[in-house]
């Protein structure tokens, strides 16, 4: 189930392969072309790119924008699986630790599928096979039958520790919130747990992961402040960041203005200044979330250039690939929904 690295760390090899992959990512010109196309043209365009094999393989099962979406996620999974295949030692551990976000996704997909009574086949279709869970384990998860069995199966993974308590809460409340939060928190808290070393790339890597946790905490705090939900911060607060302490979060969630001021006064204030200005005037958080994504992407890109032989370029590639998938999907779905080119361009995050 969980692959253990057998060789030593090999950042040089992985990074040279990653550079080649990175060069294949869509650039501004490709996006400009895509935005002018309809959904079927996008699918055709993808057939002429590296997504060809996925589009062809899935063409008989899906059509239209669904085909594009499934092809994108399958291609992304293939690329991330390659990263794990190439890497060894500490490099593997760090990449795997980051890619476990897809294990978290698959665990949540299992819970949601079992909860809503979806078939094992439907659950398996929605998996993104980019994490550490192998096909056999995912098949067992999809066929678990009950949420309790799925929780038992996940025992021994990084989610195993937090799930039993969350399952008890789930049984009391009847909603998946505790299980989903437990899975996501386990992922984020594990990100920093396994990082050791005092060299400069490791320090910056830790800084990057902290930024990601801080951004996640900030967006969740703002969402809760907007919703007015009375939630115990321990349920959604992710430890490891520097922006909030749990007590600060409890205090700030009740007052959105203070929350915005707190973020503005933090070390992220300058980067997020425009988004925070927008947030003060608009009710929607979407612009702010875009700004967070963009900031994270820029941050990872900066790290990649500063330390070319470290985990940083790989991390930068993972984020860039994820963003490419999200951008292409946004264009295709946006076109399907009849959004204008301007509206779609606003939704794209291109760095």
């Amino acid at each position: 189930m969980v692959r253990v690295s057998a060789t030593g760390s090999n950042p040089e090899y992985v990074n040279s392969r990653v550079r080649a992959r990175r060069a294949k990512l869509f650039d501004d010109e490709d996006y400009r072309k895509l935005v002018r196309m309809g959904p079927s043209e996008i699918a055709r365009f993808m057939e002429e790119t590296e997504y060809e094999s996925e589009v062809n393989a899935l063409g008989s099962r899906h059509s239209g924008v669904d085909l594009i979406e499934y092809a994108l996620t399958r291609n992304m999974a293939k690329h991330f699986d390659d990263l794990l295949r190439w890497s060894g030692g500490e490099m593997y551990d760090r990449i795997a630790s980051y890619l476990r976000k897809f294990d978290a996704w698959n665990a949540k997909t299992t819970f949601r599928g079992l909860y809503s009574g979806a078939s094992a086949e439907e659950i398996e279709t929605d998996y993104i096979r980019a994490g550490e869970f192998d096909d056999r384990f995912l098949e067992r998860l999809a066929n678990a039958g009950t949420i309790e069995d799925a929780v038992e199966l996940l025992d021994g993974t990084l989610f195993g520790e937090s799930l039993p308590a969350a399952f008890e809460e789930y049984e009391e409340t009847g909603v998946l919130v505790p299980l989903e939060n437990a899975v996501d928190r386990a992922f984020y808290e594990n990100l920093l747990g396994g990082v050791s070393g005092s060299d400069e790339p490791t320090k910056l890597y830790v800084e990057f992961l902290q930024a990601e946790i801080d951004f996640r905490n900030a967006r969740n705090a703002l969402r809760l402040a907007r919703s007015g939900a009375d939630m115990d911060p321990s349920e959604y607060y992710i430890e490891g960041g520097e922006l909030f302490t749990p007590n600060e979060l409890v205090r700030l969630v009740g007052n959105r203005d203070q929350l915005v001021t707190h973020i503005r006064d933090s070390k992220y204030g300058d980067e997020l200044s425009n988004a925070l200005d927008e947030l003060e005037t608009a009710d929607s958080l979407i612009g702010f979330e875009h700004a967070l994504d963009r900031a994270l992407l820029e941050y990872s890109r900066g790290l990649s250039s500063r330390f070319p032989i470290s985990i940083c370029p790989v991390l930068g590639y993972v984020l860039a690939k994820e963003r490419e998938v999200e951008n292409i999907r946004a264009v295709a779905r946006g076109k399907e929904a009849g959004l204008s080119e301007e509206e779609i361009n606003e939704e794209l995050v291109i760095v």
Partner: protein
Amino acid sequence: MAKDVKPTRKELMQIEDRIELSERGHDTLEQKRDGLIMEFMDILDQAQDVRENVEGNYETAQKKIDMARAMEGDVSVRGAAAALKEHPEITTESHNIMGVVVPQIESSKVQKSLDERGYGVVGTSARIDEAAEAYEELLDSIILAAEVETAMKKMLDEIEKTKRRVNALEFKLLPELYTNQEYIEQKLEEQEREEIFRMKKIKAKKEEEEAEDRATEEAEAEQDRLTADD
């Protein structure tokens, strides 16, 4: 005029009673119809606002879900939607507007806070929140529209029914009753006139017979007197 109308006083009295009742009913129904129309106009204004709201909310919700599907992916949105089995509770009661029973739909647990929507907070985004929120608002406005539009339909049916009744009374029943009343009155008058005429005839005949009897008696008396004189 009804064919089976008997031109009798009893029938006339019955018809007069029916006319009185029908006129009273007609006035009451007319008042009811006017009242219903006024109530209907109020509900119509409300229904127009509610309908506009539903249309606006539907457009917003559709846009938000399109955006959420575009940015988060269809699988993600479907997954978030699957994380909640609980349905909003809808209870219906009824209340009375001028005799029309209209539904009053009460809904609970439609608008939810972030912790009640089923999906986890940590791994989802504001796009999904906003789409869920927009659909909650849409559902609320649909429930209100269902209440108002059902009330409007029922009021409209009742107005139609009342109008038909008023018209039936005004243009069918009452004119028929008036015609029957007139017919019976004319018949009775005619019978009365015939009776008077008959009585007069009898009286004249009686007087004639009496005069004849008297003349016969007088002739006989004269005869007797002449016989006695002889």
